[in-house]
C-alpha cells in the first residue's frame, strides 16, 4: 500500500509540470487489493483475489473540461506512459468541446492523509475460519476483505490520501422452507469471538423462522422497522432526494418538503457525519466536508447536498457534496423507544427486519415501493406469533416519516455498505429502528 501511495505521489509530482499555461488538472484514484470468497450451503462456490486501480484525470482549459480514466497498476514505469497518453488525448479533445459554464476549477490548499490498518484473515484462512461455524446450516453469502484506497491531487496543490483495511462478511441463513435471516459482520480487525457471537444471534433468530409463515392480506399495518430496513429507506434519499440539483430541477422526492407543501415529523434529524473515519472527507473536487452537517433538523430541511458544480450553476454556497450529491456518511438520530420495549410498543403488527428492491413509484410525491425480506414477523399483543410471507409495500415517506411516525429507538446501529460494483464500497449508515403506524402493504 505504501508503494501505491509513493507511486501516486511520484506520478502527480511528475504530472503537474507537464501542464501548459492556462491548464488545470484534477486526478482521482480508486484502488483495492481484495479477497472474495462466495459460499452457498456453507461450501465455497467461488474464491479469488483482485488487484485493481483506476485513475480519473480531468483536464480543464479555456472553460472546457474532459476526463479520462486509465488503469493504475501502482508501477510507475507502467502507469506514467498511460498518464501522459491520457493528458495528450484530453489536450487534443478540449478545443472540440463546447464551453462549460459550470466548470469547477481546482481551488484551495486542502491536504489530508488518513490510513487505517486492519487485521484481516489471510487468503488461506478465510474458508477454514468462517465455514466450520456454519457447518450444518444452509448458509450463503460473501466474505470480502482487503485494502481500499481513495486519493486525489490537483494542479492547485491539493492532495488527499485515504487508505483503509476492512472486511465485510454478509451472509444469510435459510430454513428448509425458504425462510431466512440476514447477518452482517464487518470491521477492520477480524475477531473470532465476535464472529461467533454474531452468528449465534442469527442462529437464534433462525429458530423463530421455523414456524409456518403467516399470510397477511394487503392493508395498512402498524410496523416496526429494524435499523437495516430503516437504512434501506434512507438510502432512497441519495436517488433524487437530498441533492440540491434534483430539488432545483423538479426531480426530488423532497420537493414538497422544500416548497412547504408537505411536512415531516419533528422526530427526524438527519445529518452527514464523517467523524467515524469510515469514508474519506474529501470529494471529487478536493474539498473537505465538515465533520458533521445537519440536513433535516426536527423535520425541517436545514441543508441539502450541494456540489461545487451545482453551487456555481445556481449561485449558492457549496456544502462540499460529491458531484452526484448522494449521502456519504449519513446518520439518523435516535428517539426514545427502548430496545426492550419495541414489541410492547408495536403491540399488534409487523416486525420488519429487512427490505428489498426499493424504487420510487411516484418520486415527486415521495412514494416508495419495495418488499419485506428475511426475518419479518407478525406480532400480536407484544408477542412474536409467526414469520410472514413477504409483502409488497407502496407508501409515501411523508406518511412514514410524517404523521405516522410514532418513535425511533434509543439505540442506533451501524449498517455497513457491502456493495462492490466496480470497487468495494466504504462506510455505511448509522440509524435507529423506527415504529410506524398504518404502513401500506399492497400485494
Amino acid at each position, binding site marked *: 500500500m505504501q508503494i501505491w501511495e509513493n507511486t501516486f505521489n511520484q506520478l502527480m509530482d511528475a504530472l503537474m509540470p507537464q501542464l501548459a499555461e492556462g491548464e488545470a488538472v484534477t486526478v482521482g484514484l480508486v484502488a483495492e487489493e481484495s479477497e472474495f470468497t*462466495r459460499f452457498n450451503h456453507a461450501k465455497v462456490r*467461488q474464491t479469488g483475489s483482485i488487484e485493481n486501480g483506476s485513475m480519473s484525470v480531468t483536464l480543464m482549459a479555456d472553460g472546457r473540461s474532459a*476526463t479520462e480514466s486509465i488503469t493504475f497498476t501502482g508501477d510507475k514505469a*507502467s502507469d506514467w506512459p498511460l498518464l501522459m497518453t491520457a493528458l495528450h*488525448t484530453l489536450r487534443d479533445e478540449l478545443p472540440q468541446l463546447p464551453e462549460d459554464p459550470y466548470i469547477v476549477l481546482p481551488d484551495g490548499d486542502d491536504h489530508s492523509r488518513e490510513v487505517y490498518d486492519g487485521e484481516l484473515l489471510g487468503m488461506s484462512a478465510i474458508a477454514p475460519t468462517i465455514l466450520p461455524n456454519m457447518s450444518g446450516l444452509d448458509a450463503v453469502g460473501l466474505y470480502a476483505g482487503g485494502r481500499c484506497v481513495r486519493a486525489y491531487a490537483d494542479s492547485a496543490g491539493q492532495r488527499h490520501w485515504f487508505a483503509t483495511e476492512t472486511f465485510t462478511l454478509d451472509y444469510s441463513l435459510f430454513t428448509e422452507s425458504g425462510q431466512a435471516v440476514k447477518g452482517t459482520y464487518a470491521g477492520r480487525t477480524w475477531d473470532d469471538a465476535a464472529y461467533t457471537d454474531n452468528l449465534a444471534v442469527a442462529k437464534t433468530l433462525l429458530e423463530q423462522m421455523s414456524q409456518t409463515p403467516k399470510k397477511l392480506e394487503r392493508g395498512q399495518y402498524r410496523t416496526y422497522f429494524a435499523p437495516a430496513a430503516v437504512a434501506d429507506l434512507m438510502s432512497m434519499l441519495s436517488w433524487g432526494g437530498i441533492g440540491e440539483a434534483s430539488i432545483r430541477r423538479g426531480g426530488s422526492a423532497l420537493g414538497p418538503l422544500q416548497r412547504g407543501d408537505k411536512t415531516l415529523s419533528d422526530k427526524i434529524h438527519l445529518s452527514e457525519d464523517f467523524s467515524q473515519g469510515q469514508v474519506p472527507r474529501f470529494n471529487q473536487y478536493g474539498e473537505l466536508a465538515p465533520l458533521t452537517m445537519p440536513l433535516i433538523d426536527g423535520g425541517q430541511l436545514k441543508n441539502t447536498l450541494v456540489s461545487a458544480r451545482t453551487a456555481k450553476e445556481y449561485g449558492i454556497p457549496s456544502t462540499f457534496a460529491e458531484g452526484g450529491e448522494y449521502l456519504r456518511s449519513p446518520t439518523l438520530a435516535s428517539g426514545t423507544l427502548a430496545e426492550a420495549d419495541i414489541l410492547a410498543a408495536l403491540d399488534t403488527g409487523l416486525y420488519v427486519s429487512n427490505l428489498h428492491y426499493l424504487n420510487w*413509484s411516484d418520486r415527486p410525491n*415521495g412514494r416508495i*415501493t419495495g418488499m419485506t425480506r428475511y426475518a419479518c414477523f407478525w406480532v400480536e399483543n407484544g408477542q412474536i406469533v409467526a414469520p410472514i410471507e413477504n409483502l409488497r409495500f407502496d407508501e409515501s415517506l411523508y406518511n412514514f416519516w410524517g404523521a405516522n411516525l410514532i418513535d425511533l429507538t434509543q439505540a442506533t446501529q451501524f449498517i455497513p455498505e457491502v456493495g462492490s460494483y466496480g470497487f468495494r464500497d466504504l462506510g455505511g449508515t448509522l440509524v435507529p429502528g423506527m415504529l410506524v403506524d398504518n404502513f401500506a402493504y399492497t400485494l
Partner: protein
Amino acid sequence: MTVTPLPTTADPIDLLTEAITSLDLPADWVGIRATREESVSRSQRDGKPEGNRRSLQQGAMVEVLVNGQMGYAATNRLTVAGLRHAAELAYQQAQAAAPWRIHAFSPEIRPKVLGVYQTFAEKPLKTLTTSHAHELLSRICQGLKVSDQIVQASASLSAKEIDTWLVSSSGTQVHQKFSFFTPSFSATAQDGPVVQTRTNNGRGHAYQAGWEFLDMGDELWASVQRIGEQAVELLTAPECPDMTTTLVLAPDQMMLQIHESIGHPLELDRILGDERNYAGGSFVKPEDFGQLQYGSEQLNVTFDPTVEQEFASYAFDDTGAVAERQYLIRDGVLQRGLGSHESQARLGVPGVACARATNWDRPPIDRMANINVEPGDRPFAQIIGSLEDGVYMEANRSWSIDDQRFKFQFGCEYAKRIRNGELAETVRNPNYRATTPQFWRSLSQVGDRSTWQVFGTPYCGKGEPNQIIRVGHGAPVCAFDQIEVFGGAG
C-alpha cells in the same frame, strides 16, 4: 477512439499463451481471460455540456482448477510476470478452498474452443467525432424543449469498444471484438407540483453496433419532438385509474417485464441458491423444467445471442461455451434455464452458454444475454381493436420485484386508455402489479413481427462481488387480461 494495444505485446493471445506455457503449477486446468475496454461518454443538459469522459481499462483474470475447485486472481499487470503471479495466487485460492468446495468440477466446464467474433458496425464508433457528437446532443436538447414547461432537456451517448481474449491450458483461443452504442435523451416538464419525465423508450436504446442508431435523420427528430410534447401532455393528463383490466404493453416495457419476471427467475444459479444472499432465489424449482406452464400457450421465449445488433450477442460466453439460440419457453411450457456448464453440472438440467463476467476483474456467473419473446400473429391495430376497455403503457420508469421473482410492481412513463377498440385519452403515472405466473398465464394476444422491437440495457446488477452486465430484449406488443393497474399520488 484510439486503439492502444495491450502493453508488452502486439498480439495479446501471444502474451497469454506465453504466460500459461511458462507456468509450473500442478493444476488440472488454467485459463486467462483478458479484456481491454475503451469507452467514451458524452452528455448535455439544456444544451450545455454535463460530462465528457473517456476510459481505457485493461486487465486479466487467471482461473486455476485444483482438486475440483476453481480459484481466480485478477490483475491489471499485463506482463508474463504479472500473469504468473496472478496464476500462483489463483492456485493458492483454489487449493485453500478445495476442502470446502460445493462441487467437484472437472475441466469440462471450460471447453476447448477456437474462434473469433466481431460486431458489425455500419458507422464505426471512432468515426463519430467529438464535435459532431456534441452538435447532435445540443440539437436534441433544443428539439426537446418544445415549451417553457420543459424544465430539463437531457441527451447523452455512450460508445464502447471491448476486446476479450480467452486462452487456456487445454488449447482454447478466442478473440471477440464488440462495439456497443447507447444513445439516450429525456425531457422533464413541470407545472407547480406536477413533474413528468419522458424518455426515448425508457432509455432502452442500447445496441451492439456503430453510431448509426443516432444518425437516423427525420425519424430521430420526430422522436425528439414527440418526447418533448408528451412530457408536457402528461402534466394535464388525468391519473391512471385504479382498475382491473386488460393491460397492453409496448416493447419498451416488455423489455423490463421479460428481464425481471422471465430472465432472472430462470437463472440456474438463483435456483441453486448461490444468489440468495444478494439478488435472491427463484420461485422456479429444478423439477419445473419440461413441466411448468409458465405462461399461456401463446408465450414463446428464446435465449438468442445470434441476433445482429441486439445488445448482448456473442459467439462464446466468458468460459468458451459456444452460444446458440435456444427456446426457454415454448407454447407456454418451461424448457430450459439460464445456466453455465458449471450450473448444469451441479443441477442436472439443460442450460445455455451464459457464463458471463462484467469485466476482467470479476468471475463469470450465470447471466441473461438476449432474452426475447417471439412474435405472434396480431397487428397492433387488431389488438387494440379487439378491446372494449383497457390501458396501453409505454416505457418503464419504476421497477421492483421480490427475491423469488414472484410479486412485482412496475411503473411506466406514458399510457393511454383503450375504449371501444381505440386508443383514447392519455393518462399519467401508470403502474401495474401482479405475480409472475398469474401475469404470463394471462397473456392473451401477441403482436406480429411488425410490432416487434429490440431494446437493451447495460445495467443489470447481480452477483457477489457485484457485477453489472449488458442484456438485450426483443418483444412484440402483448396484451394481458385482468391485470391490476393504478395511478400515482402520495
